[in-house]
Every structure is written in C-alpha cells, then in structure tokens.
C-alpha cells in the first residue's frame, strides 16, 4: 500500500466545511443505540470548542428509513427535507449539520434532485407552503457531524488527554474505519476523501495518534441495508455481509472499529454477538470481539470523558480491553449505574462472545 497514492486521492476530494454556526438535526436511532454520542458531540463542539451549534425541538425524522423501506414516496421525503431546511432558515442559519448518514444521503440526494429537476423543486416549495406555511430555503452547506468533527480534529488533538496509542507497547492502535454507504458512495464529491478512500474518519484517527487498517472489504456495506435487516426472512443477508467484513479484517487484528453511521455502528457491534452465538466464531483478542465506536465516542475518550458517561456500557462488545490499551481509567462497579446512581443491573452475558 503506497500511502502517497492515497494522499493524492484525498487531495482530489476536498470538501468545504464551515468552521462555525450550524443548525443541528439528530438521528432517529442513534439516541437509543448509542445514547451518549449526540450528547458528546454537543459537549465537544459547544462546550469545549465553543462553536455555535443550534438545535430546536421542532425538527423531525428526515424520513429516510421509511423511504429506504419503500413505505413513503420520494416526494413526501423531499417535503420533509424542505421543512427541515425551512426551520434552519427561520432560525437564521445557512449551515446544516446532521447526525445520521442516512439523513446525510437523503439531504444530498434531495438537493441534487432539485438541482437537476427545478420543476420538482418548485413543486416541493409549494407543498411546503401548503402543508406548513413555511418559507422554502436551501442550506449553503450540508455537512455530516463526522465532517464537523473532522474539521475540528486538530483542535481536539490539541486538547487531548489520551492518544490512540497502546500504552503498554507504545504502538499506534490499529483502527478499522467504516464509512456509511450513503456518506459518499452516491456522491463521492460530497464526502471528505471521496468514496474509494474516504478520509473523514481516517483523518481523525491519524490526528489522534492511531493507524488506519486498509483491509480488502473496507468498501463493503456493514450489512444493515434497511430491508435486509428489517424483514426477518432477509436478515441472513445482513448477517452474511457483516460476517464477510469481519472475515476480511480479522488478519489485521484491529484494536477497534470507528464508524460514522448509526446503522453500521449498531450492526457491526451486535452482529458479532449473533455470529458468536450462532456460529461459535469470535473476532478480536481472546474471543472478546472487536469494539465498535462512534467517532464522538472516540473523540470523547481522547478528550478524557468518563467512559460510562459516553455510554460505552451500552455496547455489546465490551470496551474494557480497549480502555486498558488506551490507559483510560474506569470503575467497573459503576458501569451499570443509572444517571441517579441507581443499580440498573448487568445484562445477561453471552456464552461464546467473551466479556
């Protein structure tokens, strides 16, 4: 692998990411899957780095899951999108940042559709007027929250308490970066580094001291695939895709996986349990699986957040071996305590996947 070759591609796909003043929209599923990630994003951008990231309670889903499962038509999705953009405009923002890759794909796809079919844009503007009585507007910039953290990666590095380095060996941690399909596969120019060698997460990992693992199936879908998972009869396909990725990355012995998509983080984490319990096959050291983290969780760890405040106890694959490598202290007894300190109880433990 010739690193300079990758750098050349990265330089071909630069994306303008504004430094400040964002209208922020959340992901539907991330708040339940990885509940502290979005909170960590706001703590880091607003609290630590002093950026203006505005959120308001009137924004909704982007409609992406319904769209990708064929339950609502494209026009409906575009009207939902127009409403989100109108809310941004109403509050005086022109930079739009979303927390979900599916949403990011929907926003970019919608804007591209409007660009190519102005008559459709006019129709959606009319729909918006009729249904919500809101003024149609388009953002100047649409970025994903991982773009924003990428933009701020050096500032985060300058405030870092920990590096992505194995404290026992002094070696950089080996990190698999997994990009959600809808980040740049549809529109490579809209993603940092393009679609073939996306740099958005690689840039963070490099800035924070880790080393990227390029394994053969790095472009492969995590397996979620909406319908593949949502319909049980198809779920084997979902599992098989995840299995394919893990088989491909296994020889590289990655220390953890970082991903920027809600679905990917969830499925690459949970399917390791299903593969272990149904096939007896485990990945990672000592059968303990390969931890899968969101980029905010990684940023939070680097900045010295308490792992349990970052929600790492909600992961299927236990993160303790990773924390030990990073030299990050944690209190095992407090892992399953609620916000008020009450004992929530330890979930049932798997058989094959070691904890």
């Amino acid at each position, binding site marked *: *692998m*010739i690193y*300079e*070759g*990758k750098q050349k*591609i990265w330089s071909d796909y630069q994306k303008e990411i504004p430094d400040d003043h964002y209208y922020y929209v959340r992901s539907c599923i991330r708040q339940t899957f990885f509940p502290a990630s979005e909170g960590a994003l706001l703590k880091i951008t607003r609290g630590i780095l002093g950026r203006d990231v505005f959120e308001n309670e009137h924004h909704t889903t982007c409609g992406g899951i319904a769209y990708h499962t064929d339950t609502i038509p494209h026009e409906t999705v575009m009207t939902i999108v127009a409403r989100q953009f109108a809310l941004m405009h109403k509050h005086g923002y022109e930079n739009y940042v979303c927390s979900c890759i599916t949403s990011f794909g929907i926003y970019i796809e919608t804007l591209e559709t409007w660009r190519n079919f102005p008559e459709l844009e006019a129709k959606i503007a009319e729909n918006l007027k009729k249904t919500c009585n809101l003024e149609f507007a388009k953002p100047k910039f649409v970025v994903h929250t991982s773009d924003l953290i990428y933009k701020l990666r050096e500032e985060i590095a300058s405030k870092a308490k920990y590096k992505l380095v194995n404290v026992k060996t002094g070696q950089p941690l080996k990190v698999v970066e997994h990009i959600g399909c809808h980040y740049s596969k549809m529109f490579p120019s809209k993603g940092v580094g393009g679609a*073939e*060698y996306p740099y958005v997460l690689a840039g963070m990992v490099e800035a924070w001291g880790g080393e990227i693992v390029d394994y*053969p199936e*790095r472009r492969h879908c995590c397996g979620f695939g909406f319908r593949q998972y949502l319909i049980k009869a198809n779920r084997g396909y979902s599992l098989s895709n995840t299995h394919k990725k893990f088989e491909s990355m296994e020889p590289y012995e990655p220390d953890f996986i970082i991903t920027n998509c809600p679905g990917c983080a969830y499925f690459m984490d949970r399917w390791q349990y299903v593969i272990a319990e149904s096939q007896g096959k485990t990945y990672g050291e000592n059968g303990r699986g390969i931890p899968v983290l969101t980029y905010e969780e990684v940023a939070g760890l680097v900045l010295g957040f308490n792992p349990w405040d970052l929600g790492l106890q909600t992961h299927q694959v236990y993160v303790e071996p990773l924390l030990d490598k990073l030299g990050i202290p944690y209190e095992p007894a407090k892992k399953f305590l609620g916000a008020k300190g009450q004992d929530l109880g330890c979930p049932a433990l798997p058989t094959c996947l070691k904890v």
Partner: protein
Amino acid sequence: MAKNIIIIGGGPAGMEASARLDALGYTVFLVEKEKALGGHLARWDRLFPEGKPAGPVLDSLVGNLGNTKVLLESDVLSLNRLGDSFRISLSSGVSVIADAVLLTTGFDLFEASKKEEYGYGIYDHVVTNADVEEFFRTGGDPRIDNPQRIGLVHCVGSRDEKAGCRNCSKVCCATAVKQACELKAKFPAATVYCFYMDLRMFGRGYEDLYLKAQKEYGIRFIRGRVSEVSERIDKTLQIKAEDTLSSTPLRVTLDLLVLMAGMRPSREGTKVAKMIHLATGDDGFLSSLDGFGGMQATSIPGLFVAGAATGPKTLPDTIAEARAAASLIHEYLQKS
C-alpha cells in the same frame, strides 16, 4: 526556394511524414516537446501481433528523416495563420514561417490512477500496459516480482463514460493478449487471466494471436470487467468481476494486475488545436475534414492531421496516414 512544412509531434506519424516530405524536397521542421523522438513507440518493447521488437521499427523511422530539421524540447507557444502561411513560435526561442502544417500530436495514455477502484499508484502490485513494456525493455520493476497469478484488465479508460472516455482505444485488446503471452513466457508457471468485455481482434494476424494465447499459452479469458481491486495483508490482490458467461460473480487472488490504459486525446494536440482554431470532436480528438476521403485534411487550408491525433490508431494505421498526409501536402503545395 523549397517550401517550409512544420510537423508538430515527433512520434511515428510525425517521423514518417517528415521522411516522405523531406524526400520530396521540402524543408521540414519536426517539432517535439520531449528530449527524444519516438513518442510512445520509444517506450514500447515489442509490437503486436507477431511480437516484433519496437527498437528496429523506431530506428528505421529515425533513420529515414534525411535533412529534416528536428527541434527537440520545444513547446509550441503560438501557432497562427499569416495570410496563406503559418507562423509558429517555440519555447526554445525559434520561430518558423511555413506553407503547411501537419499535426501529428498523437495520444496520451489514460491516467490509470483515475480508476480509483483499481488502486494504481496505491497498491504495490498494480501496473499499466506501459509499465509492462518498460519492464521488458529495461528488465526491472519491483512491482513485478516473480508473479504466479497475473491478471490483465482490458478497457481501462476506454468504453467508460464515467471516466469520460466512451471510445474504444482499438489497440488494447491486441496489446493485452500480446502481453499476456509475454508474461506467461517470462513466468512459465504463472496462471494468466485476461478480463475483457469484448475481444476486438480485428487486424491481420490478431485472431491467430488470440488462438495462440489460448492454446499454447493457456491464457484464461474471462468475459467481465474487473469491478473492484483490494490489497490483502500479504500484498496480494483480491479481484472481483462477474463471469458474464455464467452470470456469476467471480473472485480471484493475484500477484500482479496489469491495467490496459487506453488512448486519450493528447494535451499537446488539444492545446495546439485551440491556438489554430481547429475543432475537436465530442471525444476530444482533433476533427479532420471527414472520416473518409478527407481524413488527413482539416477545415483550415494548409493544416493537415495524421495518426492518433484524430482518434485511436494502430501503428500501421498511423504510418499509412502519415504517408497519405505527405502525399496530400505535396499536392496542396504544388497547387499553391
């Protein structure tokens, strides 16, 4: 007084036309931007279909130049018409007034790194057709390290609208089959695969080459375009394609992948055409007057074209066009 002719591009077309026009008694200025004549031919080892060495062909083209004034390392700064004649200024400081101009600006090889999914310039063992010729010519390339499993991908930067190249590059099929045989001969224990979409073995002796590749060299031809290449931990390459003949996805591990980079309009030709207001086609190649009787003429009196400047050509095609152009220029100058 002998009339002046400027020929821009010192590849096979430019050299052949120079030789012919010089023999007819004209004063020929052959302009070449590189340090030496020969164009792509100078970088090639052997030629299809028989595998004839390129060196003697080049030597013979150079040897026939006669009194041609060869202007090397000369970029064209300007080219414009002055009444019935043309004026050219070169980066070397030389300016020439000529009665006719022939553009033999040839082609550029497609930049294989643009097909990001093939990993040229990123993976350790991905090379191009030109690299293979260089390997055979000079004998060394660390990327070609006793490979036992070799794949050749046809149509890299050809028949690919996404890469901005709709055209077939005409010579890559025959080149791929030639190189497949050469690599098999060099590494006798290797398994060699050609990934093709259509095999365009149109010329004399080409089909024989194909049959020989199958029968004597045991080359496996797979009808399907390579869609994805990845590097494994041991630096071998994981290839994905569809075997379209069985409608089934296929994968294979290789030690060497050769990309058959296609022919693109040359940057130099495009630049010069703009200076003299010569139109280019939708494909970017220079426009000749028409594709039949007017192949070497252009819309501009006194301006002529030959070789791959007007689209992908084989070497014999190129030489034939250069001769045709020389004959046409002679006719034009006799009348004027």
